[in-house]
């Protein structure tokens, strides 16, 4: 088993246009998807992120607000999962409800674990 990181981007526009009932249903889909991952022992951790933040640059001498990029460029949340391979991790990510939004994407990255 290897560890992988999902970075979620986009999807905000779709959710902002939903009715309360649809928001609730969408949340339900997320919970079911995550529950399945947890039951298979593949879910490690994950959190959503606020859109606002700070950027620390130039050795810490400059701190800027941001990133104020377009919605589809902001990381809206992350998830860490166990998977047998990158292909397996990609396959697993396809069930994520965020992909119902046209502007949403998931970046899948393997987490480097140094073994001694």
């Amino acid at each position, binding site marked *: 088993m290897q560890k992988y990181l999902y970075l979620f981007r986009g999807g905000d526009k779709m*959710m*902002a246009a*939903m*009715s*309360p*009932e*649809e*928001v*609730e*249903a*969408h*949340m*339900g*889909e*997320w*919970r*079911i998807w*995550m529950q399945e991952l947890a039951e298979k022992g593949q879910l490690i951790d*994950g*959190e*959503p992120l606020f859109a606002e933040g700070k950027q620390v640059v130039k050795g810490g001498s400059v701190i800027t607000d941001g990133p104020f990029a377009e919605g589809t460029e902001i990381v*809206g*949340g992350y998830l860490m999962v166990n998977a047998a391979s990158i292909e397996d991790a990609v396959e697993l990510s396809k069930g994520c409800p965020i992909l119902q939004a046209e502007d949403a994407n998931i970046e899948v990255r393997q987490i480097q674990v140094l073994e001694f």
Partner: protein
Amino acid sequence: MTTEAAATLDHLFRHEYGRLVSLFTNRYSTAMIDSIEDAVQEALYKAAKVWAFKGLPENPQAWLYRVANNALIDSLRKTNRVDRLDDDTKNQVEETQELEFAQDELGDEQLRMIFACCHPSMKLTEQLMLSLKLLCGLSVKEISRALLKQEEATKKAITRAKKKFKEEIGKLEVPVGNELESRLSAVLQVIYLLFNEGYKATEGERLLRQDLCDEAIRLAFLLKNEPSCDNGELQALISMMLFKAARFPARVDAKGRLLTLAEQDRSKYDEDMMQWGWKFLKESSAYTYSSIYQLEATISCYYTTAETYEKTNWQSILGLYDRLIALKPAPVVHMSRILVLSKLEGAQYALNEIEKIEDELKGNQSFNALKADLYADVMDWPKARLHLQRAISESQNFTERRFLQDKLRSWVGR
């Protein structure tokens, strides 16, 4: 669609939307409704993101309240609206910023909101749509689908209603004294219409429409909690809704097709709802006058509680319709009465009766369908088919058309 997961929350988001919008409108002003709706929407959407990852917090309502309150204050600050508010409201905004969520504050403001949404400055359909939007948390799209209206037209009607809501109401209150009676009867009319819209026979959006019925019952119970509103008409209206809603589990077959009253499996009727229907009907009869709602509740009671369709007490129902017509001479009442008459006196007698009031009924959508059934009963198949064809060409929605076409197919060759 994750019905199971959504069902466990039991429309939490939709109902919280209505509660929070009512709460903030009550605290501030109807003029701020757009900012309020945006803030509540934002809170729900933030909640969904966090709760999807971490599960529901211990007190979801308090969580939503805090996030919505902060979003509202932020948006007022951004537009400098806080400065332009009068001092009283301004103090309220500042004071309530850190205020903990008070559970017992809920309830009362929703009641006030019902009266605001059914304000006499608005037309009946506007009152209905605004109630669905602000109190029941339905989106414009859902409202248009539930009421079988164009989305654009629905949007315009809601915008018109909101304009009046902002300009003519201001502060929410439950009317008192002489005004209460007329305002309350307007509210009951909206609830009645809301229920009947949901009860109308269509299949496609069945779940959404059944929700309308649930919402109508929910709003009626909000009124029931307020002693000044709890009168015989309200009790009768609740009773009527419960007797009709008791039939929901039996209304469609396994394929999702609508079943007529005669075809329904009565063992599937909801026993609890019928018991509650009884209770409220009895309560309402403590009032000396008999209202339209009371007559309709009693009729629904006879239809729903009959052991079988054939054993329905047509004689008593006919008497009730006779009294109802005197109070409410609507085409739909006339036609229901004719149908009952055909059970008692035969279809030929009913056909003779219908001729007398044909001019009044002609424009009605279901008139030809009723006539077709009566001609079928007396085996006058050519006339029966002719009227059924007319009914098909007049039918307004897919479900009704399919229902009538199926019937016509079964009459071919007779």
